[in-house]
């Protein structure tokens, strides 16, 4: 098995730009209208069940999220840029 080569800064920037792109109203409506597939629901529910079983309390889940974020950030070739954060409150302008 080949060792994992982390993506370079340019590739990360492209991925972030895609993830941070704001969809237009029509595109958003259309995407929302696509029903969840049975497999997708089953996979998501399985993930949720695992997470809740492993971390039964909200406090444990929050602690896990902080550990997971630290691991993720440590594996990046450069620290995550704040503009790539997942804020719900960011301006759409």
């Amino acid at each position, binding site marked *: 098995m080949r060792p994992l080569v982390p993506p370079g800064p340019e590739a990360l920037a492209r991925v972030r730009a895609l993830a941070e792109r704001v*969809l237009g109203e029509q595109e958003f409506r259309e995407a*929302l209208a696509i029903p969840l597939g049975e497999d997708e629901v089953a996979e998501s529910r399985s993930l949720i069940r695992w997470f809740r079983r492993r971390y039964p309390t909200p406090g444990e889940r929050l602690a896990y999220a902080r550990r997971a974020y630290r691991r993720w950030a440590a594996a990046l070739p450069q620290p995550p840029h704040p503009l790539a954060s997942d804020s719900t409150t960011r301006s759409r302008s």
Partner: protein
Amino acid sequence: MAEDRPSGLGSWGRGGREPRVYNDGVRGSDFDEVEFFRAVAESGARALLIGRRALVVLGIPVLTGDYDFWLHIDDLASFNAAVEPLGLLPTHTPEEARARGRYAVENDEHVDVLVARSVPTVDGLRVAFDEVWPRRQTLEVAPGVGIALPALDDLILTKRFGGRPKDLEDIRLLEALRSEDR
């Protein structure tokens, strides 16, 4: 978070934004998340945890580095005062924050705060804080420390504020959660 972000804000300069004067004195800190939530809860501020951290609290394992709150516009001062002892300082004055509808409190941590009375979704629905707040759910994140979240349907609506692909993903996960809890 102290382990993840360089101390100070220099290399994180929020590229392209205007220089911030209001929080010039921000320094790194060891962040105690429980104390943070306790401070918010005990402040009496009407503050709803939204964003991906709320998904985590409910039981959805998603990656997130920030905190997002939707705060009643009249409770901005009490919220700021509550988190200031933890080293979290506002990026804008209260007047500026109210005018622009959002600001952040931060040190090594970053907490985005919405302070709008209502926020439009990307598909044109207007969501009012005063309607969402009475429907909130409160979950205990540590003994005696509760945190307020929007009801599930309202949390899904807040995910329509952003209109990004990852918001769509989160909506699908929240819908899966709803079907799991049904």
